[in-house]
Every structure is written in C-alpha cells, then in structure tokens.
C-alpha cells in the first residue's frame, strides 16, 4: 500500500532480478514532511520517532524477549489484521535462533519509528504486502545474534569450544552430554555482547521455515472471542463517541441544534469537531440515539453533487480528448516507438473498462480509543500506519510524533483502510478526546454506515485501450489511456508517491506489464481528475484495475487471433524475454494443476490470468458457469511465486482470502454516488461474497530461493481478471464494466 513502483519515465520497469520486478522499484515512502516540506538531512524515522521515550529493550534487542522458562517472544512491529504475519515473523526468528516453535509467542511492539520502521517504507507501518519482506533480514539477524549469545554462554560455562555447541528447539547441548534450555542460560547469555553480523543459516539447512509446522499463533484467541480489538476496549470512566458526518463529500457544517440529543439518557456531551458533530455518551446505543436526535444544517456549496454516471461520462470524455479539466494534464508513463499512426481498421482491438468506487468494508468498522491531556496523547486501537497516525495526532495535540503513545491491538480487517493517509478516524478520535480532556478514555465508534460512506474508496477508473496487431495476431502497437483520481496528489505523500506528475499507484501494473514489454510501440498516458470524494489504496491498489484491463485485453486479442489464451500468453512472455520468466513459470504451474485444456462438463468454462504485484507473481485458473446469466465460480487454482515460502499454510490462506476479496469486488462491489452522496450504506446494498458463493481455492507455491515477497495483496487482482476471461470464453462477449453483476 505505501509501496510505490517507480519512475514512470517511459522505460519499462526493471525486472528479472533475483527478487522479481518491483523489488528494486520499491521505494521508501517516508512521510518525512514537516510543515509541508521534506526535511533534508533527517531520516523519516528520525522525524517520526522524535520525542519517543527511551526504551530498554533488554539484552536481545527490540525484537526478542526470552522468559525464565526459555520461551521466546517475538515483538511484532506490524499490524496483524488477518494476514497471519505472526506465523511468518515468528518462524524467521525461531529458525535462526533454533528456538522452540511450540512455545514461541508473538506480541505487538510499541510505536517507535526509530526502532520499528518498516525498512521498505522508512517509517513504521504495515502495507504493500511488506511485513515479511522487510523483516526477513532484520529478524534473521536478530535471531542469529541471539542464538550466538546462548552458544557463547554455554561454551564459557562448559569450557568447550563454541563450534561444538548444538542448538535445537531452544535446547543448547554439547556432544559430551551437557544440555541446558534457553531459560537456564538466560542470565549468562544476556551478558554476552551480540555479534553485529552473525552468521546466518544457509537456507538449505532450514528446519522450520517452509514446513507445515509454521501455523498461525492467534487461532485459539480468535476462535474463543478472546482476541482483543479496538471495539473491545473498555477502560475505567471511558466514554463512547459517535459523529454525525457530512451527508455528501465536501459538505461543511453550518449549524446544529443538540437540544433533543442532550435529553437522551446516557448522552454526556455534544460538540462540533472539524469533521462534524460528536455525541459523547455512556455507550454505543445511547450515543447513536443522541446522534439520531441532532438537527444539522450543512453547507453543500463546495460538495460533490455529481452522480457516478456523470463522473463516468466525464472520464470517457477525458479519455477521448473531448474534455480536459483544468486540474490536471495528461502524463505519459510508457512510450516507445512511433505511436503517431491511427488506431483504426480491422487490425485494431478497442477495449473499454469502467471501475466503480469500492469500499474496503472490513468487518470491524473504523474506530479508535484516544486519551488526551494537554499535549499528552495515548491511542489504543488496531494501528496500521503507526508513524502517519502519530504525526497526525501530534499535529492535533501539539506534540512530537514519537511522543504519541500507541498500544496496537488486532484489527478486524483493513485491506488498506486502517492506514489512511490523513489518519481520518484517528484524528477524529483525538479531536474528541482533546475536547473531553483529562486523559479520559474516549472510544470513537463508527457505525457500518459511517464506515461505508466515509470515502477513502478504491478510486473510480476508466481505461481505454487500443491494440494494433501484427500478422500473427500479437500486439504491434498499444495505446492506453487511464483516467482515475489520485489519492496521493496534494497530500503529504505526494513528494514520495508522485513523480513527473504521475501517481505511481494509478498506473502500476500497466506500467511494467510484460505485455507492453513484448509490444514494439507503446503510448500509455494517465489523467487524474479531481473530486471531493476521497480515495485510498485498497487491497492490491493499482492492480485492482490494471490486472483485469491487461489480462482481459489479452484474452480478447487471443480470441481474435483464435489462439488459446495460455498459448497466447506463453508467446508474449517469450517475446518479453527474461522479464517474464516468473510469469511463465506460474502460468505453466497453474495451467498444469488446473488441467487447462481438458474438457469440462455442463457448461463450465475456464478463465486464466497472471499478474505481478508487490514483488510476487500469481496466476490462476478459475472454473465458471453462468447460471441465469450470473457467474458461479466453483474452483480457483492458484500458482504463486513469492520467493522463499516461510509459512506455506498462510500463503495458501492469503490466496484463498485474496481470491474471495477480489471475487466479491468483481462480482458485486460498487459504491455509487447519487448527487454526490453514496447510495450504499451497509451490507444490504453493498453486496459482499457469501459462504455459498465461495469457490474452493487450491494453492500451489512455486519453489524459489529468492528473498520472500508479499502475499497479502497479490492474490486479489488475479481473480478479477480470470473471471472476465471465463465469461468471455462462455459468451464470446467481453466484460467492460464492473461489477459484473449489476444491482
């Protein structure tokens, strides 16, 4: 999510390195902005960590704690919001330490950018499917250093050479028969100076990583109601707050009358905050009743008043050059060869795609517990963008970002939403707690309706593609226009995410596509119109539209050429060269495992797609049947190359979940505007994939010795592409508008 692919200057994305394409393109997005400008000479972590209290992390450093019983606790600097990172992060440490996996625990770390920055972001935060990737060397080193301390301690204690010491499952031993567990050697080991560059294991000697023993650490807590989420925080004297928000984007509060609201039993206070009117009460039910009793008057003079159909019509006009809003200009992100020729005639395929706004709709609506007294501020919640939230809260209470204390809880899903660039719900909680004061805990609760209508949507998008084919039916020239809102421009992230007027997230996946690599002439441009509707990264970000556009265009080209879609891709990957080696490998694996080309009965068809995002390449083959015109997906065979597979079962879980999330959006997902107001407010109108609609997802992991890359997001966009391809196979008609099932 914070991730960014690079430099849209016309060169193809660098790829084919040992970690895959975007690995080298992944740039740090440190929101190192103070007063709107980048502070030169300070690292983002220095800025975001300024004011942090001094921590004594103990002998084994900030990531490892060891109990008297020898059990190891790994401190997780990331948010666990479903992606299962406890398993992988814990296993990395346990592997290098030779610790006892069965007793190893994972706990949330403090928020402190100086110590816990995401090494791919520069500040503390979880996103871009980087939790494992950025921790890989950090935690291996920490684990190996800790192991070395125990080895040294045992060698000294037993008066034997360190080279003869063995460590297994938290037990240190010597062939002479001496043994001791970590707990017994703890005091001595803690006195050993850790090596700054300990010897890491040769991956072929791994005994835990990649085995079926690496399982989730939190399943029991999450199967008994004991896992603690923001919603579950109850502190002494705590108040509950709800907020009456603007009815449409860009509206401002004029006046309000709280007379009736204040009469509701349990309502403690009602006051205006920058985002609306806060009702503070003794519980959710009273707060909601109080809010219902408010009389509100909004100034809508600067609000969005267009409907989705109006916006889309504008996007189409922009793509055709018939409309050029003054707030942006076209930017070229890939250009090669002479594209001045006309894109018309019998050898040209035209494809048009429309994508709606999407709500993240995590099961736990946004919420945050805040306590404020003067400049002192503590936040207790499912924090995802720790440093950004610290900076935003610090701005409200006038303190240094590192001084904002965060206690991180589990998040009931996020899919990008909890890491909001402007920390919207966090700032709202801090504003209310500041008004309440006295360090009294205030739990801001958003209702589902608040959550769904608050924006920060996956942006609407329109792609217009024209492809001229060669005599064999393969792309000879590719013209591509993208019209989409940018959520980075004009924000504190702009200096890191926007280069040459191109917000990388608007073009990623088109930029760097192996199909453009294989095409001699390319003219690809993007335009980002403005709207008061707020948008944000949404699980897999640009890939949510780039994957279906590129992959469905390929299947339409293959159909025109009367070439099998898998064979057609193989030829394009051959033309793209080494850059597409991993694409070819996962395509072949998925096709083989899915029985591509073998007959299916009863109207079932297959669709295939391949897409790279966040350093991983995923292919899938779905089996689809149209039942009364609506697609039913029964099985999805996934092949993934994510580098070294640490937690195989959790990689599979992310492919299963990512596929369902993408399928839900492709089939049903849409927030539409009517006169500027969202029409969907809850799950009765924002349809989400249900149990009886979920396919069986079968995951196959490509063996790899490369460093690990992400799995939280890369599974999502591929089903959004293979499903339209299956529908094309079934009907002969392309999909041009999402969601596929219109309400």
């Amino acid at each position: 999510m914070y991730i960014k692919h690079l430099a849209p200057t016309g060169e193809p994305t660098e790829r084919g390195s040992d970690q895959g394409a975007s690995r080298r393109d992944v740039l740090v997005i440190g929101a190192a902005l103070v007063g709107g400008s980048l502070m030169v000479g300070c690292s983002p972590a220095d800025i975001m960590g300024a004011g942090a209290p001094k921590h004594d992390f103990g002998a084994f450093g900030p990531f490892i704690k060891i109990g008297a019983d020898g059990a190891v606790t790994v401190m997780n600097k990331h948010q666990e919001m479903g992606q299962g990172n406890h398993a992988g992060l814990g296993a990395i440490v346990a592997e290098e330490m030779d610790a006892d996996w069965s007793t190893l625990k994972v706990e949330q770390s403090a928020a402190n950018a100086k110590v816990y920055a995401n090494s791919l972001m520069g500040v503390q935060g979880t996103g871009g499917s980087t939790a494992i990737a950025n921790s890989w060397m950090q935690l291996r080193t920490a684990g190996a250093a800790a192991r070395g301390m125990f080895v040294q301690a045992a060698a000294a204690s037993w008066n034997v050479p360190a080279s003869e010491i063995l460590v297994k499952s938290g037990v240190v031993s010597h062939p002479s028969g001496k043994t001791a567990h970590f707990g017994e050697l703890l005091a001595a080991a803690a006195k050993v100076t850790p090596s700054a560059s300990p010897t890491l294991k040769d991956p072929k000697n791994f005994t835990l990583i990649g085995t079926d023993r690496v399982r989730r650490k939190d399943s029991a807590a999450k199967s008994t109601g004991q896992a603690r989420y923001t919603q579950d925080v109850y502190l002494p004297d705590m108040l509950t707050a709800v907020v009456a928000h603007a009815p449409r984007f860009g509206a401002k509060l004029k006046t309000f009358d709280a007379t009736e609201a204040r009469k509701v039993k349990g309502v403690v206070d009602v006051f205006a905050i920058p985002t609306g009117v806060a009702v503070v009460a003794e519980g959710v039910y009273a707060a909601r009743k109080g809010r219902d009793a408010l009389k509100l008057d909004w100034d809508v003079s600067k609000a969005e008043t267009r409907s989705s159909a109006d916006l889309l019509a504008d996007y189409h006009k922009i793509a055709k050059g018939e409309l050029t809003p003054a707030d942006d200009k076209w930017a070229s992100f890939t250009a090669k060869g002479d594209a001045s020729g006309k894109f018309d005639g019998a050898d040209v395929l035209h494809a048009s795609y429309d994508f709606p706004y999407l709500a993240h709709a995590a099961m736990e609506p946004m919420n945050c517990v805040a306590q404020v007294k003067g400049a002192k501020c503590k936040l207790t919640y499912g924090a995802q963008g720790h440093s950004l939230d610290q900076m935003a809260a610090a701005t409200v209470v006038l303190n240094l970002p590192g001084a904002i204390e965060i206690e991180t809880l589990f998040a009931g899903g996020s899919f990008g939403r909890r890491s909001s660039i402007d920390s919207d719900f966090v700032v709202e909680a801090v504003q209310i707690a500041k008004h309440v004061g006295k360090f009294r805990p205030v739990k801001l609760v958003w209702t589902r309706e608040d959550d769904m209508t608050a924006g920060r949507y996956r942006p609407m998008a329109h792609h217009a593609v024209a492809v001229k084919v060669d005599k064999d039916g393969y792309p000879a020239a590719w013209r591509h226009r993208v019209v989409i809102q940018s959520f980075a421009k004009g924000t504190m992230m702009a200096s890191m995410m926007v280069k040459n007027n191109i917000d990388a997230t608007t073009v990623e996946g088109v930029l760097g596509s192996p199909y453009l690599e294989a095409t001699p002439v390319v003219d690809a441009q993007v335009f980002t119109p403005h709207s008061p509707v707020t948008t944000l990264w949404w699980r897999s970000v640009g890939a949510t539209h780039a994957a279906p556009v590129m992959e469905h265009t390929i299947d339409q080209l293959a159909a025109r050429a009367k070439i099998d879609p898998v064979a057609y891709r193989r030829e394009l990957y051959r033309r793209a060269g080494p850059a597409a080696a991993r694409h070819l490998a996962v395509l072949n694996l998925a096709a083989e495992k899915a029985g591509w080309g073998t007959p299916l009965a009863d109207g079932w068809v297959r669709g295939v797609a391949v897409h790279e995002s966040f350093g991983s390449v995923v292919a899938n083959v779905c089996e689809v049947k149209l039942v009364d015109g609506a697609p039913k997906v029964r099985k999805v065979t996934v092949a993934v190359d994510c580098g070294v597979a640490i937690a195989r079962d959790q990689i599979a879980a992310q492919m299963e979940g990512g596929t369902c999330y993408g399928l839900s959006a492709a089939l049903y997902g849409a927030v539409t505007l009517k006169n500027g107001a969202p029409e969907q407010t809850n799950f009765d109108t924002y349809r989400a994939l249900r149990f009886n609609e979920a396919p069986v997802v079968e995951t196959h992991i490509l063996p790899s010795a490369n460093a690990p890359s992400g799995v939280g997001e890369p599974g999502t966009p591929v089903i959004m592409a293979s499903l339209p391809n299956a529908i094309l196979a079934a009907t002969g008609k392309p999909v041009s508008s999402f969601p596929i099932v219109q309400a």
Partner: protein
Amino acid sequence: MSIELEINGVKRPVNADPDTPLLWVLRDELHLTGTKYGCGIAQCGACTVHLNGQAVRACQTPIGTVGAAKITTIEGLGGAHPVQAAWVKHDVPQCGYCQSGQIMSATALLAATAKPTDEEIDAAMSGNLCRCGTYQRIRSAIKDASGQLSASADATV
C-alpha cells in the same frame, strides 16, 4: 429499569431499556466482547448468539423480547468445544473479527444436524459474512467437527 437475562448459565440483572439490542447490553454493559458489532442490521452475522440453542442476531434482538430464554455467547462455549478445536486445527481465522459469529452459527447447526450436507451448511452459514474470505476453511472445520472430513476436502497445501 432492570431486566434479568440468563447468559451462559448465569442470571444477570441489566440496567437498560427494553428496546436496547442484546448486542449492546452484552458488550457495553456486561463486557462480553466476543460478540461483535459488524452491521447492526442483521446482514453480517458477527453478533450471532444462541437463544435457547437457536442462532440469532443479537443486534436485532431487543432485550425486552428475550424473557427467560437462555442466551449463549462465544464465551459460553468454553473454548474446548469441538467446533472451536476444529477452527484452530484448520487455522480458520484471519482477522478473526467475524469468527465468534461464524462459530455460533456452526455450533447451532451441528447441534440440530449432526452431519449436515453441503447444502445444509450453505443454508446455515450464508448469513455470516467474512471479508477475509475464510469460507472454505470454515466448511472444512465444520465437516471435521462433524466427523465428515475426508483428506480431499481440505484443499490447502
């Protein structure tokens, strides 16, 4: 106004108006936080509890309508319930937020139907949303808990 509710085998007086949804009494007054708020309109199932063994949505159950019915929440299952054990065995949860509700729907199903068919599982579980997409593991866990799991039904690696 005090109303007495029997929750997980214990009679508890609560101070809330009769129109207050059971969900908010469980959470805000009794701090039984395993039962979750997800939508408030009986669309997501995160607040599923048992009322005399039947799965109901606590967000749409005013406490004034409960009477002497026995309420069971996720906390009342005890943690060692075979369905909970199957959930852990299959590593069903991702974010975990919906899983209390999923488990309450599953346990009600299995209490009524020891070996449900796929269609019966669909019918019982389709009211519970999971945005993480843990559905296929939920199906595996239900089949495992009901002694119906064959090796091929578990599609994970």
